[in-house]
């Protein structure tokens, strides 16, 4: 430090940086390198696009600064208020319905002794493997104008609020189920023993013990669902009819009217609730961690015929509903020409005849998902390791930790629009990326970065903090420790991240819809296009293909887990 301050300021700038670099040990250089790569990726692919979007919201279409004129103009139109109220009504309805449906489903899974728990768990989680467009298409087959069960809606049209709500309820259910099961599973048995000792009725116990313990999980769930609903665009696009929401507004402004400034303003509107939800969620997550500590005794349910019976019946109904929606999409894709020729055939899968793209969107999606999973897992895990277990460069590590949770607060549509602003600019040296597969990969990776990052951090936190110090004391370089200990121990988490990225890259529509080119069109976007062109059968077929690919990916994930369990996880057995 004193060397730098003593030397004259200007000419020595370069040598002094070099000197500082030379002073670093190899360990520190490796750490600095990996942190810099993560920082670079996050800045170029999150911060810069967002900034570009914010900037253009105050510029007119010719790039002249107009202040808040765009906003004024925006709020003057009556349709905005329609979209706003629609979005919020949907958000709140779906949030409440999914919240309560998933809560009791999770309760049945974790707190009862009903049979077939494993099967119910798989069926409850199944919708996550399908793109959000699939339930929408399936609902058209079920309740649409030519639907098999349209009488159920008593004359109401499925196109609009009912359709979007049903589709989103189906699609967000597993997300809610995941958070709530974790929250209910980590419950302290001692509290239930105390309740019994105090002669509390089971009913009262539920309200005094169970509900408060799951409180934070429940709040977190509601927030996540609300954000997902507000930001989703696929379902509303397919089954929304004339029911406008913010996400479809952005799509129309960009793709239909090429009005980018207005789209930026709408995006900001969408960003606000998402950011707010994100902040509240972070706060809730912090509270949650303190409830269950190492001294807590996990709760083990004991058989109780009445409760178990009710739980079984409830889960059976939900599972059947899931199967009906998924099954209907598969059935619809196999019907030759709905509703006139109901003979089963694979005609709809003959994509070459249906669209100019043929099967290429499907393979594009597989390519996109593979690269996202591969690059993403490496970047996320190495990044998380450097941030969590690095010793030096504390300010940089703190900054990156904050930056790593930012992508979660950015809705896909907003991120995609930001990419248009940033990468479609001819003055940007990175302009060549626009429309390429690499940009799609990076965009998807960034969109799902935070969940992967948090999975990695949670796994890394389970290792004692002093491991790195111990390794240094026996002269074991940190990269060797990473390779020999950290990575094998965290392998299940690494596979989780990979599978998560792969499946989401397959099913996502929101961000990529702005970024694809004719060479890189992903399957999920082609589902949208085919549905738009009235080829519902082919759209269903492509959606089913995505689902099959996701199921295969999930099975591969389970297989990999089993394969490596013996060699990397044997130490967990007592």
């Amino acid at each position: 430090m004193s060397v730098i301050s003593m030397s004259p300021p200007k000419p020595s700038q370069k040598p002094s940086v070099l000197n500082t670099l030379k002073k670093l040990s190899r360990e520190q250089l490796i750490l600095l390198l990996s942190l810099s790569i993560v920082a670079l990726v996050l800045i170029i692919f999150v911060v810069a696009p967002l900034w570009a979007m914010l900037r253009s919201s105050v510029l007119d279409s010719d790039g002249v600064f107009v202040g808040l004129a765009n906003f004024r103009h925006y709020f003057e139109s009556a349709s905005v208020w329609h979209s706003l109220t629609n979005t919020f009504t949907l958000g709140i309805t779906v949030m409440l319905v999914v919240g309560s449906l998933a809560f009791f489903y999770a309760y049945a899974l974790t707190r009862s002794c009903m049979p077939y728990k494993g099967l119910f768990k798989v069926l409850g989680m199944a919708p996550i493997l399908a793109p959000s467009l699939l339930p929408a298409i399936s609902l058209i087959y079920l309740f649409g104008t030519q639907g098999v069960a349209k009488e159920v809606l008593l004359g109401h049209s499925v196109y609009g609020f009912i359709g979007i709500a049903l589709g989103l309820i189906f699609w967000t259910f597993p997300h809610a189920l995941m958070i709530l099961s974790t929250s209910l599973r980590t419950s302290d048995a001692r509290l239930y023993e105390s309740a019994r000792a105090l002669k509390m009725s089971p009913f009262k116990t539920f309200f005094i013990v169970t509900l408060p313990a799951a409180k934070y999980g429940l709040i977190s769930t509601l927030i996540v669902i609300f954000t997902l609903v507000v930001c989703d665009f696929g379902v509303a696009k397919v089954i929304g009819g004339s029911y406008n929401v913010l996400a479809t507004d952005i799509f129309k402004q960009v793709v239909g009217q090429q009005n980018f400034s207005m789209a930026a303003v709408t995006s900001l509107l969408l960003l606000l609730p998402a950011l707010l939800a994100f902040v509240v969620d972070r706060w809730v997550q912090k509270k949650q961690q303190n409830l269950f500590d190492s001294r807590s005794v996990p709760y083990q349910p004991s058989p109780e015929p009445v409760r178990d019976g009710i739980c079984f019946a409830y889960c059976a109904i939900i599972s059947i509903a899931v199967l009906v929606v998924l099954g209907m999409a598969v059935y619809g894709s196999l019907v030759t020409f709905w509703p006139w020729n109901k003979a089963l055939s694979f005609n709809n899968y003959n994509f070459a005849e249906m669209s100019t793209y043929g099967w290429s969107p499907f393979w594009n999606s597989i390519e996109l998902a593979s690269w996202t999973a591969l690059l993403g897992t490496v970047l996320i895990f190495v990044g998380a390791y450097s941030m969590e277990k690095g010793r030096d460069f504390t300010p940089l590590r703190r900054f990156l930790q904050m930056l790593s949770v930012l992508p979660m607060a950015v809705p896909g549509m907003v991120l995609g629009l930001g990419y248009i602003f940033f990468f479609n600019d001819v003055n940007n040296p990175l302009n060549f990326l626009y429309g390429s597969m690499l940009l799609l990969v990076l965009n998807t990776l960034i969109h799902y970065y935070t969940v992967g990052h948090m999975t990695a951090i949670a796994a890394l936190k389970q290792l004692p903090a002093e491991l790195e110090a111990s390794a240094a004391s026996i002269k074991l370089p940190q990269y060797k420790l990473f390779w020999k200990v950290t990575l094998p121990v965290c392998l299940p988490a690494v596979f989780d991240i990979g599978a998560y990225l792969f499946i989401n890259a397959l099913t996502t529509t929101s961000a990529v819809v702005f970024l694809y080119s004719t060479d890189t069109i992903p399957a999920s976007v082609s589902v949208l296009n085919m549905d738009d062109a009235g080829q519902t059968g082919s759209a269903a077929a492509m959606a089913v293909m995505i689902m099959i690919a996701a199921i295969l990916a999930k099975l591969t994930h389970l297989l990999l887990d089993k394969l490596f369990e013996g060699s990397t996880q044997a130490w967990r057995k007592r």
Partner: protein
Amino acid sequence: MQTYLHIDNVIKQFGQFTALQQISFSIKQGEFVCFLGPSGCGKTTLLRSIAGLEPVTSGAIFQAGKEITHLPPEQRDFGIVFQSYALFPNLTVQDNIAIGLSNQGVAALECNQLVDKWLKMIGLQSEAYKYPNQLSGGQQQRVALARALALSPGLLLLDEPLSALDAKVRTHLREEICQLQRKLGITTVMVTHDQEEALAMADRIVVMNDGVIEQIGTPQEIYEKPASRFVADFVGTMNFIPTSMIDNNLMRIGEDLLSVPESLQELAISGCMFDLAVRPESLYFCAVEKANDLNNKDNSIAVNIESIEFQGAYCQVECRLWDDFSASSIYVNVPIREARKLNLSLQESRRIGFDNTQLHAYPSIRKAVKAVIAA
């Protein structure tokens, strides 16, 4: 013996907070030194600075005559054992010890022999192929010790190594560490908040508080001649009895007048108030016959017995100055044989005498405390 580790004016700041204030001292070759202090006193920070895990703000650290202040931990020469064991969870006991050796290029055969030697030394030969979480806490800590020592470092650092263990295991491992340390003659620094541990194990103790060294000395020096009120209070149990000097020969405790013992003569300024510090084992109950001796020939004070706690080898008797309910308790340890003879009972008035060689005086802080209570 020559100096092995020298700490020179080390300062460590975390933002506005100063964790270490100008720490300087030396450790001799082969010495076992304990850093003792309450949590947050900076003892762990000091240990981590020696290891290079925490860069110091200023000052210098020398090990074996070489300056190591700015060296990263992997270039220093030390082995370390943490409270959390920090074993590599997916490696067997054997591999945990071997990994450092084989990374240094030790040939496989030699490596195996060394590992065997260490396993024998820590008595875990039969557990060689087990994983850490299949072992008990004490066993895991022994493996950590072997791993730290396997590369024959010049310095062994122990960061509260026994704090996570059960009482029995703790005393057992305590002896083992001491034996091993003496056998290898390795310079050792241990951080602990447990004064009993420090007294039993260390050659010298560094007592720290608020980032400052309060006293450095052998366990006996620390216990018998505490350099400050903090050390007196923190190490062992100490009674602080408010006392006032009347003249060169007389001092007053409660209602009793006592002759000033030789060790306190330099304090003998009339009217001066101080706290007389005396350990529970340096107090004794006077025989009942002398209790009514008004001339107070045996220099005793009158107390009321408040409670008697049976501790097995001795009784801890809690007393209060006679007639003074606001005074703090005075604890007296009575060896069990003596206690049987004395036949003490609750609420009884007795007189206690002092072992005059073990008396200390510290400035009174009682006034401030009283003011707070009054408020």
